[in-house]
C-alpha cells in the first residue's frame, strides 16, 4: 500500500509551490508579509496536527512551544548577542527540549487529563515568562531583533520562511508515511491493541510530541524572522485554541488541512478587521458554523464529497 511514498498526485502541490515562489513579484509588500505569516501559522497548526490528528493526543497548549521557540531565538540574539543563525537553532531546540520535559510529565495520562495537565504546565511557563520582565521583557515582549541582511527584507524573510516551511512539511510528511507514523496512527485508533502488538505506546507518543514541539519552535523562530519580535501572548492559552481552530477549520484528518485553516483564519482576520471592529464575533460565528455543519473541517468536507463521488463512480466500496 505504501509503494509510492512519493505520492501519486504531487503535481498540483508542485504547482502551488511554484505559485508561492513567483507570487512575490506580483504582490505588494503587505501581501508578501501576510503570506509569510500564513506560512508561519500554518506550520504551527501543522505541527499541532501531527500529534492531534495523527497521534490522537489532546495537545491543548501547543502555543507554548511556538512561543518558546520565538523567545529562545529572540533572547539569544538580543540578550546573549549571538548570531541570528545560532539563535534560530537555540529557539527550535529549546522548544523541542521543553516538549520533551512537558511530554515526559504528561504522557502518563491520556486524553482529557493529558490536555488538562498540559494546560496547567503551559500556563505555568506563560506566567513565568510574563512576570520575568527583566529577562523576557514581560508584557512588552522583545522587539527590534536584528536579522542577517539576506533575510531582513520583506521578500527575503518570505522566501526564507517558505523554504524552511516547505522543508519542515516534507520532513513531516515522510515521518507520517514512515513506519513510525503508521504506528502512531495505530496508537491513536487503538492504544490497547498497539500495546498488545508490542509497540511502546508512551515512547511513541513522547517522540511524536518532541517532533511536534520542535516544528512549533521552528515556526516561532520564523515568526521572529518575519516580525523581528516576540510577545508573551504567543504563549497564552487563547493562541493554543486558535491553532486548534485552524486545524479544525481546515480539516484535521488531512495532511494539509491545517495549512488551509491557517490561511483562512489569517486572511479573514486581516480583511474582516478592516470592515468591522467585531472581528472576534465573526470568528466565533464561523467557528460555530464549522463545528456544527462541517465537523471534519473544510478540507475534510471536500474530501468526503470526493469519496462519495468516487464510491458512486466505482460502484461500491473503495
Amino acid at each position: 500500500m505504501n509503494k509510492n511514498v512519493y505520492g501519486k498526485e504531487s503535481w498540483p502541490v508542485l504547482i502551488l509551490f511554484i505559485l508561492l515562489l513567483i507570487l512575490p513579484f506580483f504582490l505588494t509588500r503587505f501581501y508578501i508579509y501576510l503570506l509569510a505569516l500564513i506560512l508561519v501559522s500554518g506550520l504551527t497548526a501543522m505541527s499541532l496536527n501531527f500529534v492531534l490528528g495523527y497521534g490522537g493526543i489532546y495537545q491543548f497548549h501547543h502555543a507554548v512551544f511556538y512561543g518558546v521557540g520565538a523567545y529562545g531565538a529572540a533572547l539569544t540574539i538580543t540578550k546573549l548577542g549571538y548570531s541570528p543563525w545560532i539563535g534560530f537553532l537555540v529557539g527550535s531546540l529549546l522548544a523541542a527540549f521543553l516538549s520533551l520535559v512537558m511530554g515526559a510529565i504528561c504522557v502518563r495520562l491520556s486524553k482529557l487529563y493529558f490536555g488538562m495537565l498540559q494546560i496547567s504546565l503551559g500556563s505555568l511557563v506563560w506566567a513565568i515568562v510574563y512576570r520575568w520582565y527583566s529577562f523576557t521583557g514581560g508584557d512588552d515582549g522583545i522587539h527590534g531583533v536584528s536579522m542577517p541582511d539576506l533575510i531582513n527584507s520583506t521578500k527575503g524573510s518570505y522566501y526564507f520562511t517558505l523554504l524552511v516551511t516547505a522543508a519542515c512539511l516534507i520532513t513531516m510528511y515522510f515521518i507520517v508515511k514512515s513506519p513510525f507514523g503508521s504506528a502512531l496512527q495505530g496508537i491513536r485508533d487503538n492504544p490497547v491493541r498497539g500495546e498488545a502488538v508490542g509497540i511502546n505506546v508512551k515512547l511513541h507518543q513522547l517522540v511524536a510530541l518532541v517532533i511536534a514541539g520542535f516544528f512549533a519552535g521552528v515556526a516561532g523562530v520564523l515568526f521572529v524572522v518575519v516580525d523581528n519580535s516576540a510577545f508573551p501572548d504567543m504563549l497564552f492559552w487563547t493562541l493554543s485554541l486558535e491553532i486548534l481552530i485552524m486545524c479544525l477549520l481546515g480539516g484535521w484528518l488531512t495532511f494539509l488541512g491545517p495549512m488551509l485553516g491557517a490561511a483562512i483564519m489569517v486572511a479573514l482576520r486581516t480583511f474582516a478587521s478592516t470592515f468591522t471592529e467585531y472581528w472576534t464575533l465573526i470568528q466565533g460565528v464561523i467557528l460555530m458554523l464549522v463545528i456544527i455543519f462541517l465537523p471534519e473541517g473544510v478540507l475534510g468536507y471536500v474530501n468526503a464529497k470526493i469519496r462519495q463521488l468516487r464510491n458512486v463512480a466505482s460502484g461500491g466500496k473503495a
Partner: protein
Amino acid sequence: MVKRVRPTGFPFVVWVWTKKSLMEAIMKKEMIIGMSVVLFGFLAASFSFGADTIKVGIIDTYTGPATAYTFDVLDGFKMATNKVNAKGGVLGKKIEFLTRDEKFKPDIGLAMAKELVLKDNVDILMGTINSGTALAVSDFAKKEKIPFFVTFSKSDKITGEQGHRYVFQITENTLMAGRAAAFELAKKPFVKYWIAGDDYEYGHAIADSVWTQLKKLKPRVQVLGQSWWKVGETDFTPYITAILAAKPDFIIVATGGSGMVNFQKAAKATGLSQKVPFYQHTAIELSTLEPQGLDAPEGVYGTANYLFYYPDTSENKAFVEEFRKTYNRYPKIGALYGYVTGVLIEKSFAKAGKVDKEKFIDAVQGMVIDSPVGKLELRACDHQLMLPMFFGVTKKVPQYPFLIASDIVTIPAKDYMPTCEEIKALRK
C-alpha cells in the same frame, strides 16, 4: 477520532499515474483551487488606488479597560482634523484617518501598523497606549522611514534610549512624570516614604523616576520599604496593612490604567486615604476620577498634563466647549493628545509645502503650536512635546459629580524634562 487519515501529501518528486490517483488528483485540485482563490483574492485586493488625501493610520486599543483613555485621543484628533478639512484641508488635501484596534496586544498592534503602511500606504502613523506596541512600531517606523506619533504610551525609551528621527512623543513619559512629581514632593515636609505599585515596566519606571529625582532634590528622604503587586490586582488590603504597619509619612503609588481606580477604591475602603497621604501619577485626571463619582478618595496627590477646568484660559474654555458640544462629555487627557497631534500634522505639512515625509519631519521638529494649555513646542533634539505638568490634590466640589484637583501648581516643561544632553547620552 476513529477515521482513517488520508494524507493528501506534499512531496516534490515525479508522481506515478494510476487510475486511483486520477480521482485523488481531482481532490487535490479542490485544495489547489481553494488556495489559489485565496491567493488571487490577495492579488486582486492588493491593487489599491491612491487617494488624494493625507492618510493617517491610528493604531490603538479600542477593546478593554484602556478604552477609557483611547477614545478621547481619537475624538480630540477628529476635532482637530474636522476643523482643518472644513477649511479645505492642508495643501489642498483633506486629512483622512484609518483606525485599527490592537486590543492591547503588541503583536496585533505591530501587524496593524505593517498593514497600514504596506497596504494602505498611510503617510503618518499614530498611536498607541500600549508601550510594547509603541516600541515595536517605533522600530518598524524607523525601518520604513515613516513618522510615528506616540499618543499615550509612557515608556521613556521611546524618545530616550530608543529614540530616532522618525518617532515623536506627544504624551509625557515616566521619566518626566516622576521628575515633575519629585519637584513638588521635595517641597513637602514628608521624609519617610513607602514605594508601591503595579509590578511591570511602567510601575517600576515611574517609581524609580520619582525616587531618583526626589533623593537628588532632598537627600534626607528615606524609603522604609516597597510593595509590588501584579497588574490588575484588586485586593490591596494585605499590602495596605503592611504599609500602615510601617507608618510612613507618604506613599508613592506607581499604578497605571485600571490600577489607578482599583487602588483608590481600596484606599477609601480601608481608610488608608485618611491616614497616610499618597501620590499617583494621573490621580487627579478625569479618567481616574470620573468613574468613581463622589466616592473617590479626597486628599490624593497627583500629576496630570490636562485638566479641563484649569487653567481657566479662553483657549482651554473654548476647547472644552467645543468638545462638549461635539461629544457630549468633558474632555479627558487623551483629547488633548489627539487634538495636539492633529494640529501638529496640519501645521507641519503646511510648513513643509508638500506631502513629503522627510520635509515633514524637518518642519515638525521644533514647531510651536497653540493649544488649550498654552503654547507647546515639539523639542527638536528628542521629538518630545514640551507639556506643562499640573500637580494637585483631589477634592470634592459642589459643581461637579466627581472630584477635581485643588491647590494646583503648574510645573513648566523645561523644569522637569531631561535635557538634550541627557537624551544624547542615553541614545549612545
